[in-house]
């Protein structure tokens, strides 16, 4: 009786390990699965996507060429990370003052199902006026994320809703569209603002 139970546990254990290995493989290496993360985003000039901004204008990567760009992913049903990132960015823009008028600042939703153009308009209205909210069909969002080498994933919550795991870094691109650097979530302001300043300076040098 006891031996049988032990054998049973053993078999269950082997099964659990096999399942874990399979899940691990599926998440990392499955055919057509997400590219390994940690790669650099491609240049904006090499991206191809069509979205709509919070004022209803058609936008794409070409909209961003010609001025330095700060872009990041999030969703408006996000209670913690996204309002914090938007507040941080609003603070950085305040610190930069007039200089910040020279750049594109774009918040791209990873939750287009709930984040319609109207929703994005209302949400970005609470933060710095330079911040634009972009949304669009799920397929297009996937193309943006692919270009940025960003990831996002829908996760159900106990309340019956869902939340989104997503790349929380802020991406910085030069006016030419070249990817320059990113600001990690939690990066202190004394590092973030000079990074943005660097992208803005490159723009100045390019202009002269």
């Amino acid at each position, binding site marked *: 009786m006891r031996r049988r139970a032990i054998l049973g546990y053993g078999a269950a254990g082997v099964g659990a390990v096999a399942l874990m290995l399979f899940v691990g493989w599926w998440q990392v290496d499955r055919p057509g699965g997400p590219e390994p993360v940690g790669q650099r985003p491609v240049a904006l000039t090499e991206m191809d996507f069509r979205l709509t901004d919070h004022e209803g204008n058609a936008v794409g990567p070409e909209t961003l060429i010609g001025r330095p760009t700060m872009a990041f992913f999030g969703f408006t049903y996000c209670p913690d990370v996204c309002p914090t990132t938007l507040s941080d960015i609003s603070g950085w823009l305040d610190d930069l003052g007039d200089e910040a008028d020279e750049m594109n600042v774009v918040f791209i939703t990873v939750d287009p199902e709930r984040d319609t153009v109207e929703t994005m308009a*209302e949400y970005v209205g*609470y*933060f710095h006026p330079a911040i634009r909210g972009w949304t669009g069909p799920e397929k297009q969002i996937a193309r943006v994320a692919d270009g940025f080498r960003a990831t996002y994933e829908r996760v159900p919550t*106990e309340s019956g809703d869902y939340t989104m*795991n997503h*790349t929380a870094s802020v991406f910085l691109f030069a006016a030419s569209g070249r990817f320059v650097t990113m600001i*990690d979530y939690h990066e202190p302001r004394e590092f973030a603002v000079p990074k943005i300043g660097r992208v803005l300076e490159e723009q100045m040098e390019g202009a002269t």
Partner: protein
Amino acid sequence: MKKYILTSTLAALFALGGLSVPALAGPEDVVVENAWSRASIGMNRPGAAYMTIRNTGDEPVTLIGLATPLAMMPEIHETKTNAEGVSSMSPAGEIAIAPGESVALKPGGLHAMLMRLQEPMREGDTFPLTLLFDDGGEVTVEVPILGIAARGPED
């Protein structure tokens, strides 16, 4: 505002102090500081509240849950950001606070996640949030609601 929080904390301590057994690390040893939250847009989105929970007693205390009339499902959640910069959020479970230690609920880490709001969170209002401990103790704080773009209790 600080004074208000302190006063409400004291009021809660007085109210509950008489009920708890002195031998247990009761809520009289728990002090909540700098509680704040952000206003919500409507009621469909979950809210979040932040604070520092300090155990001033000689015994460990364990926070096991939350209660508030504002939300049907208040829970302590934790945001984690991995090496690839991907943020995710999940229930934090029980939180033990050693004697003399404190736990900070702050943006991008632990937070009181307020799911299924019963009314919108309006800037300038406050709401009561009760912390439930494993020994049956409770501490209620009055949490001020700041603007949507608030970054901390001083904003």
